[in-house]
């Protein structure tokens, strides 16, 4: 199994290295769909230039990376391309190993169910064969590495590739049951961009499930483990933030990074919902809608955890997707991470509604982004509404992609099948 993965990595690196050498790299690195004010490489370079001029990079409103990133690239400036390619490979390998682990568990569960004869006859088609499951990790890695979104994001040197790597490592360490590493990587991801905070709950659920500790508020072992995990998570987060403080000698980065993410002052167009909404918002409602939109990301965590407490991996997937849709400065790199998980649920595709329509919409939107951008910004023959309409459609199309695997009540399948699938096969 290592050989195909190695081949895949070589192909992916070759594509990226070739694109770095072409003039496309410059073109891509200025696309607003690929880079956002938060993670554009141009702004990282600007931050380093400011640091060279003895000016705090956070004194202006151009640089919004965390201090760790700026110190990372302070040393890796000349190896930036390699760093980003490595980050992509790391993500793919981590996802590959994580999904492999997860599949082992699913397979074990399936075997127990079969032996206990709990599976109704009309659900047999949902049972996955070992061959099928064998290829799923490779498919996941392939979905991540060869996804055009990941490739353009890497070629643009968008730092969301690094965030994806951290999240992938977090998933891997969670699957392996290493609570400490999981908490550290989660803290790192949260430190980079607040939103992965919501992944704390599914990780905890998974780790509890793995240790056979029931989720029960009356049980002391549950509380003990939860507090232990939260302590590790918050502790490492605190360490990271204090480290940043000692690196820079000031707390300037807190408003410049987290304030910037939460208050959305930069309305540069992107594929998300925020920019045009807040450009057109009436000033006295701005704070209210800002709260509504930001809470939207965190709001679903608790009910989803209650509903899907038996399926924490699926919950992780849903949370990542929700973050990608509802975060304030989304880029296509964020999309590529949750899209990589789609092969894991490929046995449920038959229950997806409108999957053809949704894929077509996503493809058409991806093609229309540059076209309408050109018409608005360069040709002047269209206005901002054209681009806005496409971002809107893109967001609408993403909702079923992340939710459909869970909405299995398609009319074709009998309700018995749905019940069974829902309870068992996530």
């Amino acid at each position: 199994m290592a050989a195909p993965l190695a081949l895949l990595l070589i192909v992916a690196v070759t594509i990226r290295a070739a694109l770095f050498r072409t003039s496309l790299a410059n073109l891509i690195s200025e696309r607003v769909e690929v880079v956002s004010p938060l993670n554009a490489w141009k702004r990282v370079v600007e931050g380093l230039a400011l640091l060279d001029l003895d000016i705090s990079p956070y004194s202006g409103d151009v640089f919004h990376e965390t201090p760790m990133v700026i110190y990372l690239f302070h040393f890796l400036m000349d190896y930036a391309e390699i760093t980003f390619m490595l980050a992509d490979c790391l993500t793919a390998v981590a996802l590959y190993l994580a999904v492999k682990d997860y599949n082992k568990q699913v397979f074990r569960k399936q075997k127990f169910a079969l032996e206990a004869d709990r599976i109704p006859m009309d659900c047999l088609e949902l049972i996955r064969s070992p061959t099928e499951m064998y290829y799923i990790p490779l498919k996941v890695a392939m979905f991540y590495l060869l996804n055009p979104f990941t490739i353009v994001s890497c070629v643009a040197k968008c730092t969301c590739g690094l965030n994806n790597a951290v999240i992938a490592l977090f998933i891997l360490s969670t699957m392996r049951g290493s609570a400490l590493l999981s908490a550290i990587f989660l803290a790192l991801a949260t430190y980079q961009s607040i939103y992965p905070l919501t992944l704390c709950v599914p990780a905890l659920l998974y780790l509890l499930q793995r240790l056979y500790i029931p989720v029960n508020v009356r049980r002391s072992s549950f509380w003990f483990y939860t507090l232990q995990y939260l302590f590790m998570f918050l502790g490492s987060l605190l360490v990271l933030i204090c480290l940043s403080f000692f690196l820079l000698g000031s707390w300037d980065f807190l408003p410049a990074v987290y304030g910037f993410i939460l208050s959305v002052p930069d309305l540069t167009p992107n594929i998300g919902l925020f920019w045009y909404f807040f450009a057109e918002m009436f000033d006295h409602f701005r704070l209210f809608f800002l709260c509504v939109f930001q809470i939207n990301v965190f709001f679903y965590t608790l009910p989803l955890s209650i509903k899907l407490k038996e399926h924490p991996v699926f919950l992780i997937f849903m949370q990542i997707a929700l973050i990608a849709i509802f975060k304030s400065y989304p880029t296509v790199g964020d999309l590529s991470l949750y899209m990589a998980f789609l092969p894991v649920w490929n046995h449920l595709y038959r229950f997806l509604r409108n999957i053809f329509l949704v894929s077509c919409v996503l493809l058409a939107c991806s093609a229309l982004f540059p076209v309408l951008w050109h018409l608005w910004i360069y040709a002047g023959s269209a206005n901002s509404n054209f681009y806005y309409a496409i971002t809107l459609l893109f967001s609408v199309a993403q909702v079923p992609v992340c939710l459909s695997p869970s909405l299995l009540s398609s009319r074709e399948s009998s309700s018995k099948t749905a019940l069974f699938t829902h309870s068992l096969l996530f």
Partner: protein
Amino acid sequence: IANSYNRPTLIQLQNTREEEEEQQTTAQQEEQTKRWEATELEEEHVHDAAVPPLAGDPPAADPPSPPPSKDDFQEELVIRPLHSGDIYASFQFRTVWDADFMGDQKVSHYRLFPKSLGQVITKFSVRELHISFTQGYWRTMQWGQPYLPSPPGAELWVWFQDTVTDVDGTWKELTNVLSGIFCASLNFIDSTNTVQPSASFKPLGIGNVTDHSFLRYATLPREIVCTENLTPWKKLLPCGSKAGLSVLLKSEKLFHSTFHSQAVHVRPVCQDPQCRTTSMELRQTLNVVFDLHTSGQGKREWSLFKMFSRTLTEACPLASSSKVYVDVTDNPQGEQFELSPATPLLTQAVVLGDRRTYSVYDLTQQASFGSSRSLNMLLRWKMLRPLLHSERYVAGYGLQAGEIHTLIYNHHPYRAFPVLLLSAVPWYLRLYIHTLTVSSKGKDNRPSYIHYQPSKDRERPHLLEMLLQLPPNSVTEVTVEFERALLKWTEYTPDPNHGFYVGSSVISALVPSVVAMDTNSTLDRPLFSSFFPCKEEASYFMRVYTEPLLVNLPTPDFSMPYNVICLTCTVVAVGYGSLYNLLTRTFQVDEPSPGLAKRIANVIRRFRGVPLL
């Protein structure tokens, strides 16, 4: 009088001793490059000899058969910059025909001479006819004398031949006919505004008539001159408005002027110096004064295209001579302004008691048109070259990113000096300081001091200050890239597509001085020389402001905030709805419900007491 008037007004200077002296004293260098025009007498000789040879004309323009009587056509344009800054352009078109209108034989074969006018002259036995249409008043105090004066409105004066018996009746008929020819209200001329001057209006052609009963003079001061008068006037020209100088006569520009006058003069002239036979001369003149100050953004530069919105491409093929004269008297050494294309031909003429120098363009020579096959004379005033000046502009296209270029010129031939450059750029143009490049003479020129303060959104602008060393005689280019921000819709000005202004950059410099500066501040000095304190003798302080920039930003659609709020909230609601659906839906196994027929059958069976289906 008539003979002397008819003589060429241009006086040739080539062979006279005094002019040679003048050339030697004034224009030693010009002499090698410029030459004086050939003698006019030779041209006269050519006229007398035979059919005018049309040098450089295509063969198609030659007359198909030699006409029975000789005729000749000349065209000429004089451009004179006036002291007020206006430009005076004077066209003259002269047709001379060796035909005897006054004799008994009927003239019926017309070539260059307009038939409509010839027939009128014959029918009404006109000896001389002078008609002018003028819009505006010639301001002699500001403009000096025109070559051909005329009163505002319409003026008509006619000398009839002594064979005419009923002069008043013929006059009345003539005015009506001319009214038709020139589309003017000359039919309003009647006995109430006609006079017979006794001394002022002598005939300008040959013939020493003293009986002023054959003279009639009338003016219509109210006459408005416009396109409908110009078109028939142009129709009298042999080339119409198709070729030659007359292509410049487009009404949209001619009537957009301070003064416009067009005239037709018909008179008999001598054919040869001995005046044995007479010919008929038709002079059509058009004088126009352009106010290029108001229409040309206050610049004194002019060009043919700016004045007439046309350029010259060829001479009229029927013309024996076609020339453009530009008055360059005020520019003897060429230090005031320059004419382009330059012409080596110069001529001098005494006109109105003043000797003036003219550059001559001969349109019959193909060389005058150059390689572009079109002649657009333009005059540029020589620029002053200050030691330090600067330019600034925005480069790039589209509304996403751009580049600010600042060019700083050091015109000092051998001294380098430092300057301080300060730019304050608003926050909505996000500068990238790592893209800052400074180069002079193609080499990187590192600023020795940079102070940069990045902007804060909606709080403070960018501040960039640097100390640059300007090499002698060089251009230093400072470029920095920026990105345009999308603002909230309430942050735009009421006219957002006009663009946003970026204030001037400030360049402060200590410029090396040629003369020693006065450093004694206690001395009583004039106010204008004592504003900037002077610390050293060898240099003086100077401040230069660049142009402000006008930058366009991308704009949202201002008309639809409600639509955007509704649509975006709908998408969020779709997401919320889907999740709510997922969270609240429960799954349970349910038996399929029986059909309607079965249910009815079961009701009946229940009544009957039979087991249900």
